[in-house]
C-alpha cells in the first residue's frame, strides 16, 4: 500500500507527518528529517518517498499548493483510472493553522538567499503545531487498518 501525506507545501508539515507516522523521534529541530525544506524536491512536484513502515507500506509526502482538496480528488480518480483499488492508495490531508503564512513564506523563498531563513521560520511555526499534526497522523492510523 502507498500512503500519501498531502498538504500545501510537501516539504514542511506533510513531511513532518510522514516522519511522525514512521515513528521517528522529532525534536524541535526538523532539519535532519529527510526532504525537510528541500526546495528542489518540492519544485519537482512528485511525491517524496519518506520511508517504509513495518508492514512494508510506502510512505510519501506531497505538496499540492492551495488546492489540496482538488488534488486529492484528481489523485484518487487517477488511481481508479489506472486500475488500482482504494486499498492500494491512502491519502491523508495534513493542515496546520499557519498554513497561509507558510505558503507566503514558501513563495518568498523563490529568492534562493531566503531559503534557509524561511526554513528556520517555518520550523519555528511548526514546532508549535506538532500536536495538531500528530492528531492527524493518529486519525489516519485509526482510519486504516493495516494487515
Amino acid at each position: 500500500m502507498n500512503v500519501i501525506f498531502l498538504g500545501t507545501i510537501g516539504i514542511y508539515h506533510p513531511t513532518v507527518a510522514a516522519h511522525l507516522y514512521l515513528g521517528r523521534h522529532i525534536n524541535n529541530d526538523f532539519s535532519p528529517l529527510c526532504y525537510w525544506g528541500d526546495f528542489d524536491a518540492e519544485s519537482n512536484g512528485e511525491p517524496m518517498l519518506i520511508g517504509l513502515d513495518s508492514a512494508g507500506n510506502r510512505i510519501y509526502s506531497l505538496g499540492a499548493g492551495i488546492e489540496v482538496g482538488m488534488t486529492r480528488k484528481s489523485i484518487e480518480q487517477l488511481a481508479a483510472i489506472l486500475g488500482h483499488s482504494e486499498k492500494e492508495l491512502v491519502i491523508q490531508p495534513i493542515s496546520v493553522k499557519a498554513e497561509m503564512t507558510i505558503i507566503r513564506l514558501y513563495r518568498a523563498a523563490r529568492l534562493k538567499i531566503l531559503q534557509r531563513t524561511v526554513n528556520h521560520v517555518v520550523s519555528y511555526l511548526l514546532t508549535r503545531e506538532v500536536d495538531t499534526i500528530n492528531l492527524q497522523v493518529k486519525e489516519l492510523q485509526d482510519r486504516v487498518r493495516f494487515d
Partner: protein
Amino acid sequence: MKIIYHCFGGSHSSVSAAALHLGLLDSQKVPTEEELMRIPYYDKTTDADFGEIRYMGTDENDNDIYVFGKKSFSNRYSTVLTGIAKIFGDQDDLIMVDCMKRVNWSMKIGGFTSRRLGLTSIGRPIVSWGTRKAFMHLVNLVEITRFKISDYPMKYL
C-alpha cells in the same frame, strides 16, 4: 494507454483537443459553433468539475481519452499525476497533454464570462470564436500527441 488533455477549466481547449483525438471533430475543417456545442462537456462545466478527470472516449488504438481542468496550476499538476502513476509503476501508461499553450485571449475571456460569471449568452460566442481561431493549433497538438504515442514508450516524451 490513458491520455489526459488538460487546461484551465476542462471545458474548451482540452475538450476540443480530446474531441479531435476521438474524431468527433473533423481536423480538416474548422467547426461551427453548433458543432462545438455538440461536443460533450464543451462550455458546460461548473466549478465542481475542477480537478475531475472526465472520460471522453476510446480512440481506434484502444487509448482511453480523458479531460480535466486544473485551474491555474501549470505543469506542476501534470508532474503530480505523473508521479502518482510512477508510484504504481504505470508511468508508461499515462500521457498528460497541456492545452494551455494553445489557448488564445478570446478563449480565456469568453470562457471566464461564460463559465465563471455565468453570462453564457455573452461568453459562449466569444469562446467558440476563440476556439475556432485556435482550432488549427489544437489540431497540431493532437497530431503531435498521436505521433508521440505511436512509438511510445521507446522514445520518451
